């Protein structure tokens, strides 16, 4: 017999059992709970040496160079692909030995698949490639990146960074990682402080298979290899930034190998402040330009309306931009990188544009402002304004505003074209940004003209404007529609798949808003008859819908892009 069925017999009389249960177990419980708070007294056990060189030194001695790089040389990671078995110890070792934040990793391991007679699975460990011509450094508006002159290590100055995250786009390898809690990015520094003491970087120390080492490479060689396209199958074109990491192995890797995540698509971060900033500043430039032309043609009232509205939109857009920063109070640093960063140049040129646009709008509004303001203005100011107008200040201001605005939009486009992402290359950015300026500029002009006609009976060539808005919208929508069915380029095809799949909702909304706002409503304006309230309301609604459509277009611009990246793992 066993205790379960005849427990009473085993443990004695019921009263004893009860006593047992009420007193002794309670005492034991308390003492065990107390004991569980105590830690092992490790003094009892083998003590680790607390001085001398690191115990792993003999293991990694051959995995780091004997001497520092000389002239024209730099440090580089060298990966033995035959030895990389995909255990990913390097990733977690880097995390722990560098005290990174929870979930933060500076190294990654991806996989290549394919066949070369026999099936192939090849793991690829990757971190910062400490490029000869780093995208992060070139893109950074705050000069928060430095390429160490002696070692070639690309270091990030964490306290200089203001968290614009542009480097996360400018690096083709997804190396800089943004930390929302800190408001900055961080990245691999090749454990420079370890290397300088003769200690191997964390990943080198931790690889059980000695697959990662540090080598000294010739910068000229790195450039030549990048120019020849030698790097690793299924990875971004090396000529973009001239990565220095060397991937080698005895097993041949056919160029047809594909990354495990090559066909994986996921919407990217939409960067909403940027969506608004780009669309509103482009609308602004378009409206100021259209307004200027209209004013020259003699339609002063509607021109002034368009220029004022456009200027306000632009200012609003620029005010939104710092919202994108992790540390907005440091926004002034955005201009520091003007020598190399299109982001700095954009900031500077928009900084020129804003006062010019304000000036142009104010001068355009002068005929209406003066009668109100003159009683309060000192005579000298009034005289000054008169002579300014006499000396054609409005035209000069308008020309400068339009030129600086166009230059600023050009800088905006360069920012994204620079990343090398197929969806953003060349006209795929240029046409969209310029198109937004044209469509929204004309549409704002139309709204202003229709409103002026209704409110003040001032006529303007509405049908010309309606025609222009309609044509511009159709051209832009047709151009965008061609990106929905991309086949030739894999990356573009993935963007198409995203827009017709996971992002189908915004995509449909984008074309509906564009079609209604840019075609249907303008035609309705024409049908309503000149000077009617309906025409004015519809014209304003047309602009509103077009604006929504452009915002959606820009949302898709960010969300449907496929970043350049190193081969990743299976995504599910």
């Amino acid at each position, binding site marked *: 017999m066993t205790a379960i069925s005849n427990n009473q017999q085993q*443990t004695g009389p019921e009263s004893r059992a009860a006593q047992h249960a009420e007193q002794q177990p309670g005492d034991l419980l308390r003492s065990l709970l107390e004991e569980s708070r105590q830690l*092992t007294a490790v003094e009892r056990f*083998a003590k680790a040496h607390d001085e001398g060189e690191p115990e792993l030194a003999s293991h990694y001695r051959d995995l780091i160079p004997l001497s*520092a790089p000389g002239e024209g040389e730099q440090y580089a990671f060298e990966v033995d692909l035959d030895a990389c078995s995909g255990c990913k110890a390097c*990733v977690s070792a880097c995390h722990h030995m560098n005290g990174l934040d*929870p979930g933060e990793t500076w190294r990654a391991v991806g996989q290549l698949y394919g066949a070369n007679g026999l099936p192939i699975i090849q793991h690829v460990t990757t971190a910062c490639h400490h490029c000869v011509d780093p995208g992060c450094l070139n893109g950074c508006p705050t000069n928060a990146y430095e390429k160490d002159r*002696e070692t070639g290590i690309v270091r990030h100055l*964490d*306290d200089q960074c203001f968290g614009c995250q542009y480097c996360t786009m400018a690096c083709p390898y997804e190396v800089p990682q943004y930390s929302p809690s800190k408001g900055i990015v961080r990245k691999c520094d090749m454990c420079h402080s370890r290397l300088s003491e003769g200690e191997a970087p964390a990943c080198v120390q931790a690889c059980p298979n000695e697959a990662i080492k540090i080598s000294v490479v010739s910068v000229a060689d790195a450039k030549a290899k990048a120019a020849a396209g030698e790097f690793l199958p299924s990875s971004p074109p090396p000529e973009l930034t001239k990565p220095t990491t060397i991937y080698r192995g005895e097993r041949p890797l056919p160029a047809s190998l594909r990354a495990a995540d090559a066909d994986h*698509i996921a919407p990217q971060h939409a960067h909403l402040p940027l969506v608004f900033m780009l669309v509103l500043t482009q609308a602004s430039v378009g409206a100021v330009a259209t307004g200027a032309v209209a004013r020259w043609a003699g339609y002063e009232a509607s021109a002034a309306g368009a220029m004022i509205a456009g200027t306000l939109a632009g200012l609003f857009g620029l005010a939104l931009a710092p919202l994108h920063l992790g540390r907005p109070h440091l926004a002034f640093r955005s201009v520091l990188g003007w020598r190399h960063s299109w982001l700095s140049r954009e900031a500077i040129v928009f900084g020129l544009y804003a006062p010019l646009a304000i000036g142009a709008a104010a001068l355009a509004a002068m005929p209406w402002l003066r009668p109100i303001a003159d009683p309060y203005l000192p005579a000298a100011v009034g005289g000054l304004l008169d002579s300014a107008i006499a000396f054609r200040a409005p035209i000069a201001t308008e020309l400068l505003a339009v030129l600086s605005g166009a230059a600023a939009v050009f800088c905006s486009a360069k920012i994204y074209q620079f990343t090398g992402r197929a969806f953003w290359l060349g006209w795929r950015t240029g046409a969209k940004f310029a198109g937004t300026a044209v469509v929204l500029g004309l549409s704002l002009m139309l709204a202003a003209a229709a409103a002026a006609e209704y409110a003040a009976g001032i006529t303007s060539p509405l049908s010309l404007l309606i025609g222009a808005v309609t044509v511009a919208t159709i051209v832009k929508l047709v151009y965008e529609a061609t990106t929905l069915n991309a086949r030739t380029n894999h990356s573009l095809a993935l963007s198409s798949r995203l827009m017709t799949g996971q992002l189908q909702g915004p995509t449909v909304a984008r074309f509906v808003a564009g079609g209604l706002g840019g075609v249907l409503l303008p035609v309705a304006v024409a049908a309503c008859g000149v000077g009617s309230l309906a025409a004015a309301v519809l014209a304003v609604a047309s602009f509103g819908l077009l604006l929504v459509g452009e915002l959606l277009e820009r949302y898709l611009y960010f969300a449907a892009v496929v970043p350049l990246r190193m081969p990743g793992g299976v995504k599910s």
Partner: protein
Amino acid sequence: MSTATPPNTPPRESQPKRGVVGAVRDLIHQTSGPLTRELIRTPGKFGLGQVPAKLEPDSATDMVCGYCSTGCSLRIHLRDGEAVNLSPATKYPVNLGMACPKGWEALSVLDAPDRATTPLARGASGGLEPVSWDAALREFCDRFKEIGDEHGPESVAFLSTGQLMTEEMALLGAVGKFGMGVVHADGNTRQCMATAVTAYKQSFGFDAPPYTYQDFEESDVMVLVGSNLCVAHPIMWERVLRNPHSPEIIVVDPRRTETAMAATTHLSIAPKSDLTLFYALAHILCREGWVKRDFIDAHSNGFDDFAAFVADYTPERAAEASGIPVETIERVAAAIAHGKRVSFWWTMGVNQNYEGVRIAQSLINLALMTGNLGRPGTGANSITGQCNAMGSRLFSNTTSLFAGRDFESDHDRAQVSSLLGVPIDAIPTQRSWPYHQIIEGIRSGKIRGLWVICTNTSHSWIHQGDARELLDKLDFLVVQDMYHTTETAQQADLVLPAAGWGEKEGTFINSERRLGVAKRVRKPPGEALPDFSIFRLVGEYWGVGDWINRWSSPEAALGLIKQLSDGTPCDITGIGDYAPIDHAGGVQWPCVEPAEQVEQQRRLFEDGRFYHEDGRAKFLWDPPGAMPEPPCDDYPYLLLTGRGAASQWHTQTRTGKSPVLRKLYPAGVYVELHPDDASKLGVGAYDLVRVASRRGELEATAFLTPTVQRGQVFIPMHYESVNRLTLAHFDPHSHQPSYKDCAVSLTPVGRKAKR
């Protein structure tokens, strides 16, 4: 070496700001500050090299890892006795300064928000609600006693684990079987190692993996069967790569795994053709006279009958069954014959197999007939799964009595009774049902109460839907775990909060029979208690008797375990307590001399004596059988399951809690299928597919890869849904579930948004 980069931070960073100029310069170009300081590294002492300054330790201690059976040692960085970080121990003979991501992340998973911090009982609302330990333990005893009183002693069972410390599982075995009177108790080791246990017991006379890890470095021919070392045991693979003899590495696996890629020969056999293939290798060895007759004659029984049996297993027959060309089979046989130090290694591809015991023995047979046992670089070697599966096999007192003894032997019971001071009539006289019969017992109403300790049946058991239904049928289900969120805990009536690895003391026994010490370097959250303490409390509340006082601490328990091992093949009477084991860098069983005086790398059978009474090993064999559920028209694909990534562990109750590990493996369930099958099915990369078997279905992301053969699909076992599909069938000798063969169908679900 020296480089021009100054240590840590450039000098200018450390210069104090100089007034207004400095402040302005910092606004323009700030090279130091609070964000920069966060990542500063500093010499760590204790042999560590540089460490993050914010985590600089004031002392350090080494302890073995609590995930897999490799048994790596981790150097824990301590501050005021509490762990703040870790790195792999450098001088431990197992891992030599290396660890896999699970080990690196071992501390992070202790901080998860879903740790069980107080006992939970199912309340009136049907949810799990916090209760006091006192109330929980009373409920535990009252309910199990009620069930036992009503339905008899066989109605309460427990399921143990290979993840607890040896001392803990031994105390559980004692309290459960001798105190509570449980008859039927098994462990999750049934799911991973039972086949190896049975194969060794039958062939060698004792459950005795004969090797030491040094053998990985000393073989000139290695045969790895159903074993993806690169992913499952990365630190053992490290040892293979250190082999200086340019070994021939022959990998037998239907999939082209990382290990197969690195092999010199990969035999991508048809699933379940192993036995035929290995008999054919034996056939060739006999045919060519490539057998070590003197070794066979001196140390084994049954060879001649075996040789007669394999006469029918021609290479042509094996080629037909396996899809491997005859020439390749001949070449592999020759490599085995001509190798000087040939080792055979197997893992779950063999163990989780309906004829796994005979497959393991077919490898043991090859080792025996070629004399590849008891010498460096040789052996028929089972690579274990869990960190303490080996401890469980010997000392869990579940299906076999302590230290390989037999519940049905009067002699064995008398020995245990006198060694532990347990009344002899408290020791059950019958053997326990294995895991699957306990589960079946629920169906038949024989099992009414179940205590599940440190395992996750509702996720991991084969034919999961059935298992879950059966667990729901129980009158009383108790789950003891670190986390209250495991699938099984969610079904429990009572959850007991357990401390985890790092929060308790004890020893593990690794794959090469090495005992290593684990220590308390973190305080358990809330009222979670070490399992050892929980078992003592259960004993106390149950009122099991005075004998339990001998189990006063884990270290005292080790003393009892040593006594229990006396005179058995796993005799560890010499090892001393925790300190000498720690000083020695772990110690392998047997060990009858002081731990620090024995060799660090020892293998069994150097004298050619096996554990059967006549000292001889046995040749054992059976004809291969067909899989019970081959692919058919309705279910045309064969589903293989197995380990996914080195960063995933079993049902992910722990590894799923580490943000770093989660980045290192695919988040959701995916199915690997051959691109040709995919195009036949109209399935594109990353499309969603419905995978269905006769028992259940799941939706998985399709991953197209030529590394699986046509007609086969692979789903990692770590995803909760995979065992909805698997077919409950078992090895007849070991009762281990055969997870790697059931028929499934695939249907595209269509492209669906997946974020």
